[in-house]
């Protein structure tokens, strides 16, 4: 007549495995801190990155990625050089181009608040001649007043870029705002809102082609053409534009895509994310070692309990399971705390920056899984030590 094997019900394993946590909650809290910090760091990094990327993507979506600028490849000391005088029209005729606007930087001109400002105080502002379609091509908006139109383009009126208006100290339109431009007064009829994809427009005072040619000595050559393309053909169109702008010397034309600057920020964010994820992984590893340490000490302290359990009929695997589950629970508590902490950091930071906070569910899931894995691995050695103890040894040394 042989006696049955000993067995521990699954429903009993959990209460047995939480004895250590229940009797020493302070120690348990300290031992999970490392894992919690590691997981929090990883979740926060992923959450913050995702939130900021979503912000950039939303901006790209809003601004569009189909804006191209065509300019000369060899600017003279920062000033734009001329394109052939029919560049604007031939660019506009190119297949895939939805809209095109030519502008010309008037290099020798400066703009002042009044005629009393010394000529050296240029304020970093440019004067640009532009066609009347610029507003719609850039998809820009007016902050005040109106843009240039066919009738005002021939008269001394000016539209100020957002930054230019600030520098000149013109906050709103009173009806008789004037600025001193090229040795004569110009009436300000409008102020543009910020144009994110064309910061050079922000810093410019814009005048019509007509008045530029008649009063400001413009020779009719554009220096920069803004192009909106068919959204699906932007890259293809970009390849065709140099020849359209300057058939004789296409290599002297450069075509750029301002939204690339924003896209580049996505790539940079990816690189920094990996770095911080690595740091989080190190914290997690250290946290796991912390749990293993605490578990080893705990097993040594509880030799008497281990011996008693063996005397009561616990098999080695029951003792091992008890300590592994305890360690896994420590990992789970650390992981859960870490996910909550990381989510809180993400929300706080996103709100601070005015982003929509996004906590990627896969980051929370992976964080928890990693914490459980760390808890399991950390518990294996202490659990095996406890299971290997001979009952008599455990009882005698307790």
């Amino acid at each position: 007549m042989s006696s049955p094997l000993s067995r521990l019900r699954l429903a009993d394993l959990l209460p047995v495995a939480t004895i250590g946590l229940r009797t020493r909650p302070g120690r348990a809290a300290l031992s999970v801190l490392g894992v919690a910090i590691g997981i929090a760091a990883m979740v926060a990094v992923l959450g913050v990155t995702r939130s900021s990327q979503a912000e950039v993507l939303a901006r790209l979506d809003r601004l569009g990625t189909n804006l191209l600028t065509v300019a000369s490849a060899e600017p003279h000391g920062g000033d734009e050089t001329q394109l052939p005088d029919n560049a604007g029209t031939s660019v506009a005729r190119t297949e895939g181009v939805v809209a095109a606007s030519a502008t010309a930087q008037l290099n020798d001109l400066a703009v002042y608040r009044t005629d009393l400002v010394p000529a050296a105080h240029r304020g970093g502002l440019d004067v640009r001649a532009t066609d009347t379609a610029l507003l719609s091509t850039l998809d820009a908006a007016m902050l005040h007043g109106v843009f240039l139109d066919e009738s005002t383009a021939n008269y001394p009126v000016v539209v100020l870029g957002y930054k230019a208006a600030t520098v000149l100290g013109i906050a709103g339109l009173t009806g008789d705002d004037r600025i001193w431009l090229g040795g004569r007064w110009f009436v300000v009829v409008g102020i543009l809102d910020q144009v994110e994809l064309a910061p050079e427009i922000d810093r410019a005072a814009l005048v019509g082609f007509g008045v530029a040619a008649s009063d400001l000595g413009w020779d009719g050559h554009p220096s920069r053409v803004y192009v909106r393309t068919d959204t699906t053909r932007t890259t293809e169109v970009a390849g065709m534009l140099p020849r359209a702008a300057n058939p004789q010397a296409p290599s002297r034309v450069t075509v750029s895509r301002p939204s690339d600057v924003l896209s580049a920020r996505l790539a940079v964010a990816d690189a920094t994310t990996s770095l911080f994820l690595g740091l989080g992984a190190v914290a997690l590893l250290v946290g796991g070692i912390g749990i293993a340490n605490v578990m080893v000490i705990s097993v040594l302290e509880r030799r008497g309990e281990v011996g008693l359990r063996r005397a009561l009929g616990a098999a080695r695997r029951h003792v091992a399971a008890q300590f592994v589950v305890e360690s896994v629970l420590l990992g789970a508590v650390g992981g859960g705390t870490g996910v909550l902490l990381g989510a809180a950091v993400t929300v706080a930071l996103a709100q601070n920056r005015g982003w929509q906070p996004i906590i990627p569910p896969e980051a929370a899931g992976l964080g928890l899984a990693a914490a459980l894995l760390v808890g399991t691995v950390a518990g294996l050695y202490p659990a095996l030590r406890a299971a290997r103890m001979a009952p008599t040894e455990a009882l005698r040394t307790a």
Partner: protein
Amino acid sequence: MTAALELVDVRKTYPGSPPVESVRGVDLTVHSGEMVAVVGPSGSGKSTLLNLAAGLDRPTSGSVRIAGEALEKLSERRLAGLRAHRLGVVFQQFFLLDHADARDNVAAGLLYRGVPARRRRAAAEQALEQVGLGHRMRHRARLLSGGERQRVAIARALIGRPAVLFADEPTGNLDSANGDAILQLLRDLNRDGATIVVITHDTHVAAAAQRQVTILDGRVAS
């Protein structure tokens, strides 16, 4: 009468230089319903003998049989099963789970048999009544007196109706009044049918048993 415990030429040698022969060929038979005291001075090998008889350690040679089952033929897992189902041990240091109440401590005696918690607790309440602690069921173990703690430990060893109940110096940590009460309890349990082996160096304790076996230098002296 059937043999609850049977030791045949049991020897235990601890490795070292020189090796220590702690138990040197012990033959001992304890019948069901008996109460036997194993007496001997400290260092006589009686504690080693208890560990071997209670399946906590394995002999170097010889045979240990509990209720007809030869321990030396059992795997580690089978031996654990035998401890869970056939044996009860009471220690000098009680070994209670301090954070748990008396009832849960006693119920732990059935934990590794896979008995559901509700039935374990019901059986524990019965066992606590049996040792006279019916009024202490929900008291935490660390708040109980020494005598009460040993009663809880006895109830825990008893709850599974083991083939043999071993008690290692059960009165060693108690004053004489509490010690006598524990001895009386063990006698009462024996009268009700429990097979008990008490290991002690105290002749007063040994006198409580029907039969005394004296161990000296790892051998049965009388």
